[in-house]
Each structure stands twice: as structure tokens, then as C-alpha cells.
């Protein structure tokens, strides 16, 4: 079965500092990994995905994530946080060989960037 763990309910960081939001996964076979952001009263916005290839994936709004197969992790990072990055972040996984190709989501991490 597929599963995603986001061990931190909330991450606090000062504006201008680097941020990391953690994600580990479990799937059978090769994973497809995704990060989404959700602002209040909004749907999910796509940030980035790992399908294959380079382990370092660059996405929207200056975010990047590194796929680490040995540690089964896909942590989200940004070199310099902005107050406007404050939102709810979800990591999601899909097994590449799953027939119905559904995404399984983590519990979410609330990012709070202080001025």
C-alpha cells in the first residue's frame, strides 16, 4: 500500500531564512512524488513533481525538492522564505505501476513565515 508521512504539523521560519518541509513515502515499485500548496479557502496548487531523471526537482515560486531513494524522502526546500509562502503544504505519492493511478496525500504541514 502507498503511504506518505509528513512528520511536522507546523514549520516556523523567519523571512529570508531557508525552509525545509519534510516528506517520506512508502510505495511498491518506483514512486511518482508531488508537492502541492493550499492557501486558505483555495484548492490545491501544484508546486513540483518527481517522475524520473534528476533527483533535484525545481518547481514554482522558487521551491525545489530532492528525491532520495535510499531514504525514501522527498523534502521540499526553498533558499529564502517569504511571508507569502505561509500556507498548508501537502506531499503526495503514486506508485508508477498502480492501475488506477490515484494520489495518496500526507497529513499536511502548515508553514508559517514570520516577518
Amino acid at each position: 500500500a502507498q503511504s506518505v508521512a509528513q512528520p511536522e504539523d507546523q514549520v516556523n521560519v523567519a523571512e529570508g531564512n531557508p525552509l525545509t518541509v519534510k516528506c517520506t513515502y512508502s510505495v511498491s515499485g518506483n514512486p511518482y512524488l508531488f508537492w502541492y500548496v493550499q492557501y486558505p479557502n483555495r484548492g490545491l496548487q501544484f508546486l513540483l513533481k518527481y517522475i524520473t531523471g534528476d533527483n533535484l526537482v525545481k518547481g514554482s515560486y522558487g521551491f525545489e525538492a530532492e528525491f532520495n531513494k535510499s531514504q525514501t524522502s522527498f523534502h521540499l526546500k526553498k533558499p529564502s522564505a517569504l511571508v507569502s509562502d505561509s500556507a498548508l503544504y501537502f506531499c503526495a505519492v503514486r506508485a508508477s505501476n498502480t492501475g488506477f493511478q490515484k494520489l495518496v496525500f500526507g497529513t499536511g504541514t502548515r508553514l508559517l513565515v514570520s516577518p
Partner: protein
Amino acid sequence: SAVISQKPSRDICQRGTSLTIQCQVDSQVTMMFWYRQQPGQSLTLIATANQGSEATYESGFVIDKFPISRPNLTFSTLTVSNMSPEDSSIYLCSARQDTNYGYTFGSGTRLTVV
């Protein structure tokens, strides 16, 4: 990437009634999905909807309560039937893009049952 228009954005409904949520995609997609999300919580998959076949429901969700239609490759509806206050939640649709493994989401429907 595909854009999904989801309607209504919010509604307040009386218990015992039904609400149909619509999602229109601006391009053809094979797979669509319906999720439920309590505010600030994670997403729980309700069902997967492929065009031309019956929707596949996840454990804990049944067709009589959440009937789904998928009449073509750009449209789907989810009905929340015989609503109770426990159905108050955010409902989101999603489409898997056939070309680049991406998944797009609608803006959500915030449902309150009174």
C-alpha cells in the same frame, strides 16, 4: 496544464437534501478523482471516475451516498445525497493529465449542512 472549473464554490444545505457538484476541465482527461477534505486537514479520496465506466469507490464511501457521473472526457459531477451535518466538508475534484503525469485540482466546494 489543465484548468478545472468547480461549482458551486460553497453552499449551505438543509439536512436530508442533496447537492450536486460539477467539475469542468478545459481539456480531455482520462481520469478524474473526487476528494473530501476537512478544513486544514488532509485529502481523503472518495472515488475515481473514468469516462464510460462505473466509478471506483474507496473504502468507506458508497455509490448510494456519493453518486458520480462522468458523461465525457471533460466533465464530472459528484452528488452528496441525503446530507447530514457530518457531510460538512470541502469537496475537491482532480484530473490526471494524460500527457505529463500531472494532477490538477479544482478550487473546491465548501459544504455546510445545517
